């Protein structure tokens, strides 16, 4: 592909370029506007709680906050400590799928 004489003429022809300048401004402002109208957003975490050892059944629950190792949470009337959090599969839209490995908190 080479630049034709017509294209070369238009790329320096000022009335046409003024039109292109306006078109580009509209395109940019329209694109920025679309980008700026960021949607309200809240990640939903679907968490599979696993307590190894068979003392407690596994639980699947939704939460709005992701857990971190060290968090103590209430699960089936017992307090458990999260010891590891893994991402089970890639996020889907606003859903993130996690697996939280937990252990019962001693004395509770």
């Amino acid at each position, binding site marked *: *592909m080479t630049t034709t004489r017509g294209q070369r003429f*238009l*790329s*320096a022809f000022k009335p046409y370029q003024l039109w292109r300048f306006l078109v580009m401004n509209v395109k940019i402002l329209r*694109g*920025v506007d679309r*980008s700026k109208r960021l949607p309200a957003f809240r990640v939903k975490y679907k968490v599979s709680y696993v307590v190894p050892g068979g003392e407690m059944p596994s639980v699947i629950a939704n939460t709005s906050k992701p857990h971190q190792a060290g968090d103590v949470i209430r699960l089936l009337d017992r307090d458990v400590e999260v010891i590891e959090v893994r991402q089970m599969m890639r*996020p889907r*839209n606003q859903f993130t799928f996690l697996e939280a490995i937990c252990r019962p908190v001693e004395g509770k």
Partner: protein
Amino acid sequence: MAKVVIIGAGFAGHTAALYLGDALGEDHEITVVNKGTEFCYLPSLIWLGVGRMAPEKLVFPLAPVYERFGVRFVQGQVTEIHPADDYVVVRPVGEEATRRLDYDHLIVATGPHLDYAGTPGLGPDGGHTESVCWIDHATRCRDAYLERVERMEKGERIRFVIGSGHPMATCQGAAFEYLANVHHDLLRRKLRDRADLEWLSNEDAPGDFGVGGVQVKRRGRVVGSDTFMQAVFEDFGVTARSGCGVLGVDEKRIHWEDLDGVEGDTRYDFAMLIPRFLGPRIRWVGKEGEDLASRVVNPGGFVLVDAFYGLPYDRLVDTPEAWPATYQSPNFRNVFAPGIAFAPPGPISRPHVTPGGRQITATAPRTGMVSATIGRLVAMNVIGLVREGKMKHQARMTEMFAACVASVSDSLWSGSAVSVVVMPVVPNHMRYPKSGGRDPLSTHLESGLAGAWMKYTIHKTMLHKMKGRFGWKIIPE
């Protein structure tokens, strides 16, 4: 009272500081830590590099702006981040002792570490090549360029090589702008016939620019940025060599390897090559003094955020949600990394490996408009966290709009520029499966005088915005 610390005052950090200062500056403590005292408008450094713009037109002092916005400013370098204890260690300029800065929210907006050492012989400090990545380097580049111009005026023939200086370099757009401005400046000086211009880049094809190229429909047929750039190079009389990873530079030659694994070299009299970008050189320290780098940053030093890492390229292109939405560290949720500091989940352009196993890929650019947009987004989310305890905004690069105007010549009467408008920055093949992952109505590519006007308008309006002057909020990033 919440404490927010922002490291860096480039596009992302400074934009975040303006929005945070505006919303929280009176009641909360916002602190910016930056090595220099001035904001530098990087996209116009290419004009400085050919002597068409004075350095003082590209910078302004940060302190008076921050004073108006109620933002504290510390000139210094952050040496350590303690994310488990919520503080950073700063070495203020001119002081031996370090200082501790506590935070509730930390924004790491350092920009890149320019890794000249990654390519032997590269860079202006101890190497043989020039660079337009920072104002001091661009000033040196201008001096070196004008020295070559003097030699050409005496009748010497000079070979200019411009492009990328590492197999994994990014920001080819800036290198192209510099090449185009050199071409036009030499035409203006009536010296073009004494110069050989060569483009040397790690993109797999000219016009890739690290975003996988752009395809637009023009008069019923699809035109790719590769075809477009080839026509531009032909027009300029430039020899283009793409798919070359620079391995080293000596006093006379640039040594490279191409995608087929063939090694070669290019003679030069003047070379401007963009280095590889790495993440900030800051230590991440745990509670017991242990190194936390493996939990917080990737091997390149970029901060790991809410992206989905580790996907092979073919799956990554079909997973728009793998790109980060909030730029928040998953392990330390009060740490954010907008702009170049965050680790992308992979390249935007298709990666290439030579038969010998060397990776040659144009890495994902996230400079300029993208940086500032993410900086604003992070600031809005931090404001939300401080006021209501929750974040309300997200922007993935697979949904984000960006405009890039590559100056070809700075004159407002006879100049020109290549204007590239992309929606989204990272092709989203799920949303736009029939148009190469981009919105055909918004994506745009053209060259002409209007682009030169656009570049100048953006230069003026962005400096106005960054100074926080009247109406700064309504000017888009």
